[in-house]
């Protein structure tokens, strides 16, 4: 057991993640060709606009399911909503936010863009602390809209007239997942502006602009889009219940900041917070690069049901440094 643990802790989780992401990408984008279907409540961007997908992103059914009059919430359709939410929760709770770091196809695409940038020797950009604080609120606004807009189609909210039907899946219309992911199956049809109505024109126009921003942003900023992702906001609501966790022993921490400086989303708390045990933040995607970069034994750890799966160790840190330099 100790030998196994040591082997794991000495391992390079970044390399493992690279291959895992590739596999997950293949499965979620092309799994349909093998007649795979893992349901409609996946806590990750397995986009419904990809025909060969192996399962669907939960945000799409969620928008449909809340699009009903208040009276039906207690009826059969309400049960549908509840079942969807519970299924989402069950999927999510298994791997927590690692769905973002290890499975999300849109996240993987951003990581590939980052690899390309690094290979070209172009430096990344960082957010200032304050900017970061302001921007991270956007995803909660998007999540609120994603639920309120469909609700406003079936109901009159705040005394306003009911909203047009075209807003039914408004978030999907502006999500870069819809425009980018089908490209991997040779389908460029989503890269267009829909002129069928004024609402659709506005939504798809915005979607095209966001797609442009997605590529440009991901090229200069690691995981640029993730900071705005409403799925990330929805997940964080349940993150405390996750079985997979990222934990920290504050007493072991020297606040050297290694974890924070390798963090793709630029989380500061991982280094500065020395009191929280469960250290997952709302922007965290549980890629666990921080654990690999931590030189203090047992300070940061990945646990599943309380059992350490991957822990920071001084030995593991040094092995990774050596290996990396040898591979250039």
């Amino acid at each position, binding site marked *: 057991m100790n030998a196994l643990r040591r082997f794991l802790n000495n391992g390079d989780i970044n390399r493992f993640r690279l291959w895992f992401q590739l596999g997950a990408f293949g499965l979620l984008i092309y799994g349909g060709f093998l007649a795979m279907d893992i349901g409609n409540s996946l806590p990750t961007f397995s986009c419904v606009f990809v025909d060969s997908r192996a399962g669907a992103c939960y945000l799409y059914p969620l928008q449909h399911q809340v699009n009903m009059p208040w009276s039906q919430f207690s009826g059969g359709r309400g049960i549908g909503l509840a079942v969807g939410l519970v299924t989402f929760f069950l999927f999510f709770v298994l791997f927590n936010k690692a769905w973002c770091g290890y499975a999300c196809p849109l996240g993987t695409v951003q990581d590939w863009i980052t690899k390309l940038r*690094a290979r070209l020797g172009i430096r990344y950009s960082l957010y200032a602390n304050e900017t970061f604080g302001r921007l991270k609120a956007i995803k909660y606004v998007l999540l609120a809209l994603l639920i309120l807009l469909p609700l406003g189609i079936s109901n009159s909210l705040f005394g306003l007239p009911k909203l047009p039907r075209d807003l039914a899946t408004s978030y999907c219309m502006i999500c870069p997942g819809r425009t980018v992911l089908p490209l991997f199956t040779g389908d460029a049809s989503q890269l267009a502006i829909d002129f069928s109505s004024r609402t659709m024109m506005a939504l798809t126009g915005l979607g095209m602009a966001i797609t442009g921003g997605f590529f440009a942003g991901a090229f200069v900023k690691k995981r640029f889009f993730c900071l705005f992702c409403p799925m990330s906001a929805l997940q964080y609501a349940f993150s405390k219940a996750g079985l997979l966790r990222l934990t920290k022993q504050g007493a072991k921490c020297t606040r050297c900041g290694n974890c924070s400086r390798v963090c793709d989303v630029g989380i500061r708390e991982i280094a500065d917070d020395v009191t929280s045990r469960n250290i997952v933040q709302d922007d965290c995607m549980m890629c666990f690069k921080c654990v690999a970069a931590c030189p203090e034994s047992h300070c940061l750890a990945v646990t599943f049901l309380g059992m350490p799966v991957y822990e920071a160790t001084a030995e593991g840190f*040094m092995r990774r440094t050596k290996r990396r330099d040898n591979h250039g």
Partner: protein
Amino acid sequence: MDKERRERLIRTTGVHLAMEATETLRQVVEEFPDNPRAMDYFYDLFRAEYCGGGAKKNGAMRIGMLCVQAPEELIRAAGAVPVRLCSGSHAFDQAGAEFMPAKACSLVKATLGMLSLRTAGGAERLDLVVNPTTCEQKKKAGELLEDFGYRVHHLEMPPAKDSEEARIYWQRSVKKFAAVLEETTGVRITKQRLAKAIRTTGMARSAYRRLHELAKWPRPLIRGKDVMLVTNAYFFDDLDRWTAAVTELADEIEQRRETNLPGAGKHAPRILFTGSPPIFPNLKLPLLIEQAGGVIVVDEVCSSSRLLHDQVAYDEQALYDMVPAVADRVLKPCTCPVFLSSQDRVRRLLDLAASFAVDGVVYQSFAGCMPYALEQRSVGQALVNANIPMLSVETDYGPDDQGQLSTRVEAFIESLRGKARKRA
């Protein structure tokens, strides 16, 4: 200073330095029965450096550091050898007294004295001196060095380390330092060279960490006076040779654990040493502690553990990420009292005390060293709250307080014996 007087000063200081060094080495080597054999490398190294006129230096450029805060990885990547100049010599302290107020800190005065005479301790040939702007005395010392004729780079440091502003300021300052290094040595710092420097210094720290870990063993296996020689040797020794010697020492110590070779007794009080750095030949206080029967199992001083603990991590193998990474290493985890907050130092001390099963803490502050004197209260309070006794000592490089100190240290060690027995 006229020439004749200067030569006389160089001669007498040289004699006094050799006497000091010989006496410290005698105590370190002969007064303890259980020296590891692998320590001979270090004993010989110090004998050669301080009593034998210094070892032959190879041809590489030598960059002096007035403090541990200069990122040595950059110096190595620029093809030069870093030499830490902080001196522990009373003879140099006296020579340096003419440049600083009487109440100034011994360490700064000794370093100035050494550099004004340019005779030993690494001061013979220096292509550049880096002066990180830490405490006020070092800042001013840097300016004096320019008057002595040295080429000095003042590496500007922020007064705090937690804020983003401080970190950005420091990273820019380090970037500028890298450019000065390239200009000095004529060698470009490339990502390959820097990666190699990060790896080799990382391996040295890794070797030291292993030795450090072994001190957690319930029965002390190595004494603090030896560990301090090992870490002091890092100031001037060849990096690869040092790493190999530390590895050999750690191997031997590991054997002791398995075969129960002699070490200090199980009931010896375990001490954590913190505060102003004990630098060879001034091992006065550490030696008194161990002569009185205590064992320094761990320390938190910038000449030893602080210097050799923290590691560099970078995300992308490119200079835009690696240079800030080596800058971060010396700023973020640093527990020097010149910074705004003492919280990290207190947390570090409490963690070390717990994980090394420490019975008591000895806090050294050099007379004249304000930062350490100022933090003594908050550190002491935190230790009291954690039920850890602390002896706080104000001293300098002079031998005058030896008698008084040994009485206090003996009493402190005696008072810990009951606790140590209960623990064992």
